């Protein structure tokens, strides 16, 4: 399976559900995906929650967020013989099958496109911020004030260049758009287009799923026995469109500690799971308080 860079695809017209498969065993940690994404989408510099030097190997982008839509993670570990082992993985919004952000959005700004990607319409979003606390992967964020200040004040790292002047698109929620505007043109997303080693694979989700199984199997045969597929089947998001192979966890584990190592939830839970319990409690309170008032009056 290969990224089709020369020809134009017509996934949008045919409504084909597309996605990413990221394979860390091909990644060289060059961060071309981070730069290509920002250049194509004019994403401003993420001077905000900057991971200070020394806290995360060569990863200074810190986290996905409103101004970092692709984020290469670096893990330094060791082989059995005690030789260094350096792993890289390009993280991105998961475009969940059932997306917490989409369900939380009160303005309908977040919608699912014909290719199954979850897209924030920057012209509708009024920055209410509820999607930010509804994403089980901690991806989407509101740009500019006050997220940077909040994180800065808590994590004790004042935003290094928390520039006060207005940031482009300030106040809106942002995340990876799976380059919907490129896809309308029949082009593949900017990150997959740039990736020198095709570690980021873009294509129909069905084909990616099939290829992912084959790839994990091949890796196991080749001795990369700790390779597992992280496809979001656990938890309640019913699968994710941006899958990745994970390495570095313990051999043969279900994706548990590999997910932990890479800072991914092993059991991503979109908040809709809590609706019933919370609303019922609210309605019960309404009734009880009405009764309480009645009693207070009548006695």
């Amino acid at each position, binding site marked *: 399976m290969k990224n089709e860079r020369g020809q134009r695809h017509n996934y949008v017209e045919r409504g084909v559900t597309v996605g990413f498969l990221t394979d860390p065993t091909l990644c060289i940690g060059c961060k071309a995906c981070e730069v290509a994404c920002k250049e194509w989408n004019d994403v401003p510099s993420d001077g905000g929650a900057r991971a200070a030097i020394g806290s995360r190997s060569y990863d200074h982008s810190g986290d996905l967020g409103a101004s970092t839509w692709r984020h290469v993670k670096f893990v330094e570990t060791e082989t059995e013989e005690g030789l260094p082992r350096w792993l890289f993985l390009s993280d991105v919004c998961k475009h969940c099958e059932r997306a917490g952000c989409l369900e939380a959005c009160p*303005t309908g700004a977040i919608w699912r496109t014909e290719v199954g990607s979850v897209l924030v319409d920057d012209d509708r979003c009024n920055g209410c911020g509820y999607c930010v606390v509804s994403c089980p992967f901690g991806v989407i964020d509101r740009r500019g004030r006050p997220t940077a200040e909040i994180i800065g004040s808590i994590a004790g790292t004042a935003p290094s260049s928390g520039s006060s002047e207005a940031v482009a698109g300030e106040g809106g929620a942002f995340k990876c758009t799976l380059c919907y505007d490129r896809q309308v043109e029949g082009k593949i997303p900017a990150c997959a287009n740039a990736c020198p080693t095709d570690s980021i694979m873009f294509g129909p989700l069905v084909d990616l799923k099939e290829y992912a199984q084959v790839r994990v199997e091949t890796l196991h045969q080749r001795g990369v026995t700790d390779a597992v597929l992280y496809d979001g089947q656990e938890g309640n998001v019913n699968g994710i469109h941006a899958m990745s192979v994970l390495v570095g966890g313990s051999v043969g584990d279900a994706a548990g500690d590999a997910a932990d190592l890479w800072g991914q939830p092993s059991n991503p839970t979109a908040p809709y799971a809590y609706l019933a319990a919370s609303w019922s409690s609210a309605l019960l309170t309404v009734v009880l308080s009405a009764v309480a008032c009645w009693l207070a009056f009548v006695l």
Partner: protein
Amino acid sequence: MSDRAPSGYADRPLVKPPVWTWEIPVYFFVGGVAGMSLLIAAVAGLARMSDGAPALDPLVRKCVWVACAGAVISPMLLISDLGRPMRFLNMLSRFNVRSPMSMGVWILVGFSGVSGLLLIAVNGTIVDLPVVAPFAGALGPLMTTLLICGGLFGALLATYTGVLLGVSTIPAWHQNRRRLPVHFGLASLGSAASVLLLFGSSDPVLVRLLWIAIAGEAGIALLSIDRSAVARENAAVPQWTRLPPILMTVASAVPLVLGLPVLAAISFPMGSLLSRFAWIKVGRLSAMTSGSSQRD
């Protein structure tokens, strides 16, 4: 293999902290007070019915005034917290049952509408208008339905905010998704009663309501002492977040017992307001410590 753990991301936050600032906790408090005062108005009006029409005694009038004040202030607070305030109308472009934020907006709209009508109705000027005269007979049941709707919207307004936090990925919030609506409801009820007391209404019902709220809060406090969210054990939780339960229970009960209701009517709402700020702060800390290696 050396004992050195791999430099991984297990200690990095799994979810993002809330982006809301002071306007939201204040709105939770103001909305709660306004909401519950309309509930009190409704119950008061219906409990003291006379000849098919709810009594519009001074307590009900005050409650409606408080509700209307809340109905005016709340939207301003919500809109000011938006990243793009000028687009607040987009919230009204759809009705999304699965989003507590969307439901909350419609509850607030409903509440504001009803409290507006009640304000007019309660002031009696409408009754003398010649155009209204022929419907005089229907006023009683109209007032009843208005009060019932107001009470319903009011109570929902006071409790949906609990659902707003409860239905989220923030561990400290969703782990308390059942407790939060109850807590916000009771806190609002008690605060509404206190506010009315402070506005000079001496109706003994208010003190009883305050007692109910205090008892409720004491119950919740006892329940949550044993386990509660990751926030409690987390060392980074500032001390002041432990203050609200005390204010709303002991610090309110003692003045009541000593016959100083005004003191209680100050302590309780203060505890209630502080509690909203505490839950936001705890929510942020909970997000920042949501890394898999810190999972409790």
